């Protein structure tokens, strides 16, 4: 049975926070994340008829779409910066409270020092609490690789936090 518009509305309501949080972690920028979240849901609405619940949950599917939307954004941004030579000017300065309300400033700064690739696995596995298989599907890698990537990201995060506290 094909998913209906009503199903989409329900899925959007239920998973909006997840997609938004994932994109916040991926981009490290709340404004960009909001725009990309809206774009992700716009794309999802267009493709909602193609969504097959047998192939994975709506949350996983939406996260996959969000990731591909973010990658398109990164690519476009990279092209724009290269063209305009404005890399240094456009690199956003670390701001407080990007990755969530109530995070310690050390953890906030440590997260901003991780790469998008490291932050996305943390977002999927820790923040969204996706299981290994689903997270691996979103990232397009194996479950083992996903687990390894998570472990390294957390180690790095902890190192960064410790270094910040020590400083």
């Amino acid at each position, binding site marked *: 049975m094909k998913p209906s518009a009503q199903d989409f509305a329900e899925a959007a309501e239920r998973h909006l926070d997840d997609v938004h949080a994932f994109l916040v972690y991926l981009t490290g920028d709340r404004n960009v994340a909001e725009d990309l*979240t809206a774009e992700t849901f716009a794309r999802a*609405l267009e493709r909602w008829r193609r969504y097959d619940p047998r192939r994975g949950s709506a949350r996983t599917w939406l996260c996959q779409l969000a990731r591909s939307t973010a990658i398109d954004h990164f690519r476009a941004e990279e092209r724009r910066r290269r063209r305009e030579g404005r890399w240094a000017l456009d690199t956003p300065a670390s701001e407080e409270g990007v*990755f969530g309300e109530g995070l310690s400033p050390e953890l906030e700064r440590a997260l901003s020092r991780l790469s998008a690739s490291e932050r996305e696995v943390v977002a999927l596995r820790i923040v969204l609490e996706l299981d290994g298989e689903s997270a691996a599907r979103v990232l397009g890698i194996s479950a083992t690789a996903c687990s390894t990537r998570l472990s390294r990201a957390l180690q790095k995060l902890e190192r960064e936090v410790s270094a910040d506290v020590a400083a």
Partner: protein
Amino acid sequence: MSPLELVDDRFGELARELHAARPVAPEGLRERVRALAPPAPRRFELNLRMLVPAAGLAAIAVSLAVAGGIGVLHSPKSTEHGTIQARRPVARLAAPVPQAESKALGQRVFGATLAPAAGRLQQYDANLTVRVDNRDDLSKTTQDALRFTRRLGGFVVWARYAAPSDRGASELALRVPVDHVQQAIAHFSAYGTLVSQRIVLKDLQQRVDGLTARISRLRAEVAALKEQLGRVLTPERRALLEQRLQRDQAQVALLTRSKAASVRRASMSRIALTIADRPKPAAAPGRLGRTLHEAGSVLARELEVLLYALVVAGPLLLIGLAAMVAGRVARRRSDERLLERS
């Protein structure tokens, strides 16, 4: 079990803090998403996942329809089939035929074949294979061939008749006076369909002439030796001449027998006649069976074409597939690098 519980104990506190402080979508964003209008329904949406199996099913359906259509159109009706069998033009001669008719037929059939030369000694060998319609004809024509051979003054050297369940045949080795050989061949050929015919003519006149000359010479020598032996001779000379006389007389006897055999061979032609009946036709399939057979043939042809296309296009498809996979891998790596840099 929550994924958080699976995280290494060292990172437990870190993970709990991250999870507790997860970003929440602002109300403005929630409104934006709620306001998204569903796109206008497309009249036709190209979906490869559905299109490929649908195209495959359509191709199979078209193949079956074409095969079935051709099968129905090309399969002959049963009555037509029977008519074709009955109309088969076969020269038959189950009962003895008047010699005049047989001869006329022989001239018609063998007008251009070898005939023994008049006035010369020749060895005439003929090998004939005739097919008759059924087992009854086989029996009748075999008996007729034996009778006809004897009527022409010939004889049967040997005959073999075998009629198992599927296909019967009789093989006859006949001797027919050479003067009547053409008549015999024409008669035998009229039993049914002439499948094969082989005639070999070998001239014996030269050999017989040679033998005659040698015999004459030897006889003259014998006469001369006898004349010498009537004279007074030394015992040694007499013994020598008597020895030569005996040898020449034996030679004369041998050559005379050989000449007689050649003459006999030239007087009687050798005919090897094989009469076979037609194999029992398989039960004629019904209209449905013929239709299915035709359809099967067309399907086999279509499969052949498909196989040919696969053989020709297969390497290109493989290259295309490999390029697609390589493109995906490259794209994924490029994404990973991009995310590493971001």
